[in-house]
């Protein structure tokens, strides 16, 4: 299992989703990706993208103006 972090700060939707989508294409099943964002919309959109593409959201949290999504590539 490989753990990676994606910096999507300052990007507005849908760019964090696009960057997540492009990053996930380079990962293997079982890999964990942490996406760090500043657009609160990602709390809705990245989980929606994961649901329609079959990936698993492990954690979402808001932390002092930052929004963190942890997902597992399926």
């Amino acid at each position, binding site marked *: 299992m490989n753990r990676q972090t994606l910096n999507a700060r300052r990007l507005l*939707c849908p760019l964090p989703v696009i960057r997540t989508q492009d990053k996930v294409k380079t990962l293997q099943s079982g890999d964990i990706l942490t996406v760090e964002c500043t657009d609160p*919309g990602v709390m809705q959109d990245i989980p929606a993208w994961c649901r329609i593409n079959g990936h698993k959201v492990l954690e979402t949290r808001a932390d002092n103006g930052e929004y963190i999504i942890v997902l597992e590539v399926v």
Partner: protein
Amino acid sequence: MNQQRKAVALISGGLDSMLATQAILDQGIHVEGINFFTGFCVEGHTHAIRKQDADKPKRNNSLWVAEQLGIKLHIIDVIEEYKQVLLNPKHGYGANMNPCLDCKIFMVNKAKQWMAENGFDFIITGEVVGQRPMSQRKQTMPIVAAESGADDLLVRPLSAQNLPATLPEREGWINREKMFGFSGRSRKPQMALAKQFGFTDYAQPAGGCCFLTDAAYSNKLVDLWKARGNREYELDDVMLLKVGRHIRPKPNFKLIVAREDGESRFMSGYKKDFMSMNCASHRGPLVLIDGAPTEEDLYLAGQITARYGQGRDAATVDVTIRGRDGEEHNIQVIPLPAEHIPEEWFV
């Protein structure tokens, strides 16, 4: 055994592409969605920068539509390629800086490329004959099909019965009779079909899905090009045109004044790219300065910054000027009265 046919649907997030996709899904076709991000797309999130819009849905409508339809969605960044569409539209602009017909041709062409790369068979759009004055007219429908290169692999399920049969219809992959003959600007047939499909919630963008159809936004874009002396732009330019008051007192500089805390927070991410200002002695907005102001211009910019802060009625206000390198110094200004800011300064 019959081959499972596959279609790629252009999903805008609006009702028409949602209905068109459902009509093809109902015919047993495997459909996946594609959505192109040009940088000018109207997003709930962009509006959500501002607190006053905080109650608006923050969802991305294309993702939401894909989830409702139970299909995959591929969102493609076309920001760089789209510049040529915006800067040199073969078919010209609409009422503002919107190159709608060229945009549609570009997107269908991109979908065709994606179709070929991913082994899909045809393309679906939610176009309706006569729905939009520039890109969805009876005369322009064949232009989109021909100039995109999609030709008869482009299916418009909502207006299919008004258009020549496409290859998927002729080959029997899909049944023409199970598609529709909508035309004109009325939304009633779409609403009735939405009800029939059981869709009770869908996006209804009032001004289309693109900032370029907006007169105020288009004016700011043209002003930016004029001030720079060329029509180059980057995504950050496009984003900043969506926020703040844009005030150009002189051709050589422009102020972007945050209208509230949400915008100040968003714009603070650009402090390394622009000179910036804020009131030091009173509460006030963050102001970015685009261009090359002189010392005298900076005093005027400080006066305008003070006018939008809580010290607007004070005798003097201290204003912090911050360079791109983060170096700061303060100046003392007399706030500019509102009536001394001419209407023509507002872009």
